[in-house]
């Protein structure tokens, strides 16, 4: 069985069984609402909702590696904006002789909430949905099956190339290629390492294309699906709830 690149965590929870299209809608709604209602508590509320869904899906621990990188940037934003933001006037506090300002910190807080909200909403999607199911759902919704193939093929090709990379690294090192040292040495090492993998994968596309052609890849017959998914009533209810929340926030925006 080919390995696929994925963050999916197998658990048997209600969240995992929700239709993938609904999870995409959830992401869109939770990205849209803070833009429609730009108040800090709205973003905080959405973050809390996403966290509770992640807890329900029992995947909270897997969220950390996913948001780690962004959180480091956010910390640097808090520092830089807290110190240097253009509108800085009110002093918030001092650390040693360095002064942090309220306006900058508040701006950094707004940005952080916005980013964390997006990250967590996406985390629900990527941690509880199998990529293959997601692609199948999209194809059922009308995405061209040829592009469905492109997506799932991309997920498979990366692990394949990674294993090729492992053997090429070993092969080149055994021929005496230096991969550690000063910058010039490391730059020189880049080509012998990346060259064979990249050439190989591009040349392979020719064979892959032919292999697909002889299997009627371009056939215009209607495609059938391997997995038939029953449309659960709960899926429709969730969709309805998401749309009403979105409409409600638009109404609030107009009224307020």
């Amino acid at each position, binding site marked *: 069985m080919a390995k696929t690149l994925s963050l999916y965590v197998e658990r048997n929870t209600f969240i995992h069984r929700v239709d993938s299209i609904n999870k995409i809608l959830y992401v869109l709604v939770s990205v849209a609402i803070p833009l429609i209602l730009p108040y800090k508590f709205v973003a905080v509320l959405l973050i809390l909702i996403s966290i509770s869904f992640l807890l329900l899906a029992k995947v909270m621990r897997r969220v950390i590696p996913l948001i780690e990188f962004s959180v480091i940037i956010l910390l640097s934003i808090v520092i830089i904006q807290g110190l240097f933001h253009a509108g800085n006037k009110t002093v918030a506090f001092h650390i040693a002789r360095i002064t942090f300002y309220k306006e900058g910190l508040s701006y950094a807080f707004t940005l952080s909430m916005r980013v964390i909200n997006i990250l967590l909403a996406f985390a629900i999607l990527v941690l509880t949905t199998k990529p293959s199911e997601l692609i199948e759902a999209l194809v059922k919704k009308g995405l061209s099956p040829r592009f469905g193939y492109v997506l799932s093929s991309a*997920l498979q090709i990366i692990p394949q190339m990674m294993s090729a990379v492992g053997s090429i690294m070993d092969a080149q090192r055994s021929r005496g290629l230096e991969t550690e040292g000063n*910058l010039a040495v490391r730059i020189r090492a880049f080509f012998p*390492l990346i060259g064979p993998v990249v*050439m190989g994968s591009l040349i392979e596309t020719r064979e892959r294309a032919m292999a697909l052609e002889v299997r009627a890849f371009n056939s215009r017959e209607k495609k059938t699906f391997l997995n038939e998914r029953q449309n659960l009533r709960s899926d429709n209810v969730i969709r309805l709830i998401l749309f009403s929340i979105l409409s409600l926030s638009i109404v609030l925006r107009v009224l307020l």
Partner: protein
Amino acid sequence: MNKRRLWSFSFTTATLVLIPAAIGINYIGKLFAGVLKLPLWLDSIGTALASMLSGPVVGAISGAINNIIYGLTMDPISFVYALTSIAIGITVGIIAYNGRINTLWKSIIAGVVVAIVAAIVSTPLNVIFWGGQTGNVWGDALYAYLIAHAVPVWIASFLDEIVVDFPDKIATMIIAFLIFKGLPRKLILLYQSGETIEKLD
């Protein structure tokens, strides 16, 4: 030999299988840049190669799908930067179509153009999501310095981005050019002469 039309939206099987390969190459480039601790990203070599082989449309799609895959498997925020990848794909495609990437010098100039385009597209995204920062230590240090000296956020953010993009995109285009030069001719013809593959019968 008829060249493919520049803005062709008809995808042959060959162009479709090129997209996953391009994404894999992007990934490998980023991986090696990390392993060798190079101060660059090198994560758009594949997109550039797809554009050089198959034109701006396929390049743009490779870029977009690349960021979707990254978003689904590593860092969700990269969904947003799909816009930058699309712009890179289109730019390289147009330059390559007009036959301007056939010497080392021209690939360097192409790199400069790509860097400017990428920075123009990324800057608004950086301002919206990160208050103008990029997450790169050198770029952000410059940004902090500029902001502290009352330079407008947009300019500071653009400079923050371009400081990183300049060396990165130039290196990317040189690498893509060297790889492209080494590809067998039958492969290049497969992509540039139109519908060859569909005439198997």
